[in-house]
């Protein structure tokens, strides 16, 4: 480790190489139109290796920050550059590592898909933009990659775009993310107008502009300008809106369950492990600008989301939807931790969650994959994602069973797992934080604990329903070896050893030590009481779930009860949004359509017919009067010509008669008139 000593510029070149490698597979696959799977895996592996090198060099050492002028508007210069600190190198390793595993997994999982080359291209684009997002040093660049990440997520959700549900889900995800993007953009604009720079180091670094700005007499004063103090909160809330949409927090979370329409490997990579964590990452980046009010809002949103999604996950029957709501719930934990100032604990949970949730999804994907094949082989028709149809897969799919159990233990936060460390870190810190307050804030840790117990229940339900109980399928076996090996690697990453050598103390974890601590008073008793109490109850809950689902094969709530339906329909939020926003928007657009059709089109059509009438008048004038005059002159000439032609008979005597007539006429004229 000591031998790794790259200079700053080498590191920058390495990180650029790292983010460009996946882009290479994007462009190469699009150009060559081959399946490109191995090429994509090769590229992302290179990225992963480079990111590990960078990680080992930068972690807990000096911040690397290199930049150059990107463009300038008038006097103002915009810079672009690379910022490598603990936060970004951690995310970098996380993203590239999980991407590599998911790429390898996809080699088997997506085998035989007609549009496989597009799949690799989109995945490459996603990895490029996510890694770019992580290492960018300016809010503008982050915003750019933020949009790219959203776009590639849109492409991948709608990967099976021929399914109407998939294209609907893609649109929904995109539109909901736009709402957050607008917030993010507003935040960027406020920050720019206050500080005249978007450089993260200048803004949020040690003694940066944000920390040196002060609130004085209702004014928010920076070194260059000032504005009313309310704008500080607005800026924080606006940036948080971006995080709400990207990290699927209440009330903009409804896109994430629908995003499960995409391939399971995509759900695993993007909608469980990496992209949804971008919101938490953003909060980590802009942390110094969040004031007390904003932090309280963040905490509130976080615990609401954690609690709500956990209750919804209790009653879902689609295996991927359970995991999706679980993801939302866990993201709520992270956001709430950000809100209470537990910055390091939040990032810790982000890292452990990335591994075990990715594993849960990939194991679920393995089950779905095998069931789907089974269904096709035996020409059966059933929903291969419905856990009520599964059962007893423990014997047939041992690898999937064991790895998923490890992930579930980690999600439940039982000892010896990575989830135990991070979740207990969160809970203990929240209890310590709540000690300093009275009133409503006291409830925060209890809501989190309650959500955590619900997590235990729904993940036990999932495991028991899928893997235990009566076996319903004969002849199902574990998926091909690339998928199996991926699961095993992730299972290893989900146990404590990777994060801390002491399985019971999160404070010894290198990851938590890499970030500033929450700044709350350490209360020793809590470090024993909280994990003990939480885990004893958790074990009891698992036992109850075992009794209910395996022994008795019973239900907890009847399908008809209000709570069951309320939870199963996801608190009726989709219906509420349809009623509150979609319908009014539709009626407004219908009205404006009618207005356009009747009034605007009517005016245009009326003007059109007026002009038509005018033009037919002028047509008539032109045809009859102008042309008529010309034509009548021509007609006159023609008739004169015809008349005189008649004299030209060729008969000698006729000429003579003509001559005679002329002479006589001359005489008559001359002498008698």
């Amino acid at each position, binding site marked *: 480790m000591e031998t790794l000593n790259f200079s700053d510029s080498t590191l920058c070149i390495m990180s650029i190489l790292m983010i460009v490698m996946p882009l290479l597979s994007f462009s190469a696959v699009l150009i060559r139109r081959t399946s490109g799977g191995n090429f994509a895996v090769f590229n992302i592996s290179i990225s992963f290796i480079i990111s590990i090198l960078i990680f080992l060099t930068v972690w807990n050492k000096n911040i690397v920050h290199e930049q150059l002028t990107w463009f300038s508007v008038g006097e103002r210069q915009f810079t672009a550059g690379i910022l490598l600190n603990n936060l970004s190198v951690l995310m970098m390793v996380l993203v590239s590592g999980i991407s590599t595993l998911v790429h390898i997994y996809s080699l088997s999982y997506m085998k035989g898909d007609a549009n496989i080359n597009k799949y690799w291209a989109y995945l490459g684009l996603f990895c490029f933009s996510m890694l770019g997002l992580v290492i960018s040093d300016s809010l503008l660049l982050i915003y750019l990659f933020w949009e790219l990440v959203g776009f590639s997520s849109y492409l991948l959700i709608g990967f099976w775009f021929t399914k109407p549900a998939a294209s609907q889900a893609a649109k929904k995800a995109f539109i909901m993310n736009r709402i957050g993007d607008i917030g993010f953009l507003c935040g960027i604009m406020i920050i720019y107008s206050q500080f005249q720079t978007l450089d993260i180091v200048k803004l949020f670094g040690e003694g940066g502009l944000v920390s040196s700005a002060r609130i004085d007499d209702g004014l928010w004063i920076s070194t260059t300008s000032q504005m009313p103090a309310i704008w500080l909160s607005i800026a924080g809330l606006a940036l948080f809106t971006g995080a709400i949409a990207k990290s699927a927090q209440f009330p903009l979370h409804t896109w994430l369950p629908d995003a499960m329409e995409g391939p399971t490997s995509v759900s695993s990579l993007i909608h469980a492990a990496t992209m949804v964590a971008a919101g938490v990452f953003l909060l980590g980046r802009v942390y110094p600008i969040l004031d007390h009010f904003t932090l309280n809002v963040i905490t509130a949103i976080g615990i609401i989301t954690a609690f709500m999604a956990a209750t919804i996950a209790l009653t879902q029957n689609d295996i991927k939807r359970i995991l999706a709501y679980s993801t939302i719930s866990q993201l709520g934990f992270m956001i709430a931790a950000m809100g209470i100032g537990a910055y390091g604990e939040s990032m810790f949970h982000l890292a452990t969650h990335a591994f075990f949730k990715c594993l849960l999804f990939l194991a679920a994907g393995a089950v779905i994959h095998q069931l789907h094949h089974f269904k096709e082989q035996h020409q059966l028709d059933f929903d291969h994602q419905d856990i009520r149809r599964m059962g007893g897969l423990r014997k047939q799919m041992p690898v999937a069973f064991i790895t998923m159990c490890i992930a579930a233990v980690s999600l439940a936060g039982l000892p010896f797992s990575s989830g135990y460390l991070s979740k207990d870190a969160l809970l203990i810190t929240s209890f310590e934080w709540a000690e300093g307050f009275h009133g409503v804030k006291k409830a925060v840790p209890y809501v989190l604990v309650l959500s955590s117990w619900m997590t235990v229940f729904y993940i036990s339900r999932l495991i028991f329903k899928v893997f235990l109980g009566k076996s319903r399928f004969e002849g199902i076996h574990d998926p091909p070896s690339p998928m199996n090996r991926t699961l095993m690697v992730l299972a290893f990453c989900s146990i404590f050893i990777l994060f801390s050598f002491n399985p019971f103390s999160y404070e010894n974890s290198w990851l938590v030590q890499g970030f500033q601590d929450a700044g709350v008073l350490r209360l020793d008793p809590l470090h024993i009481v909280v994990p003990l109490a939480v885990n004893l109850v958790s074990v009891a809950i698992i036992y109850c779930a075992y009794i209910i689902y395996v022994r008795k094969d019973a239900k907890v709530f009847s399908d008809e009860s209000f709570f069951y339906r309320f939870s199963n329909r996801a608190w009726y939020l989709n219906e509420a949004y349809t009623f509150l926003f979609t319908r009014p928007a539709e009626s407004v657009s219908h009205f404006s359509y009618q207005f356009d059709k009747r009034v605007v089109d009517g005016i245009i059509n009326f003007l059109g017919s007026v002009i038509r009438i005018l033009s037919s008048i002028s047509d008539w004038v032109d045809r009859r009067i102008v042309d008529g005059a010309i034509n009548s002159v021509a007609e006159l000439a023609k008739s004169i010509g015809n008349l005189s032609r008649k004299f030209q008979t060729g*008969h000698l005597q006729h000429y003579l008669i003509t001559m005679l007539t002329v002479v006589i006429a001359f005489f008559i004229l001359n002498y008698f008139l």
Partner: protein
Amino acid sequence: MIPLSHFMLISAGLFCIGLYAVLTKRNAIQILIGIEFMINAAILNFVAFGKFDKFEGGGQMFALFAIVLAAAGVAVALAIILNVYKHFKTIDPAKIDTLKD
């Protein structure tokens, strides 16, 4: 003594007969005869006016010249008619209309 107007009337009548023949006949020879009538009407006028002229015999002199010229003209005209006949196999002027455009 016969008054001048009688000569004039006769020559006018003669001219009109000639003119009529020229305009109506369906035979080139008859048209030529009509022309001769008109020339003779003119010659008759020369002689009649010559009687009242103070230079004795001037009218007769002109008449003689005119007769000679008319004879020459007739000779030429007959030659033309002969060629026309050779060309068109007819001397009916109503059937010869190649002067038309």
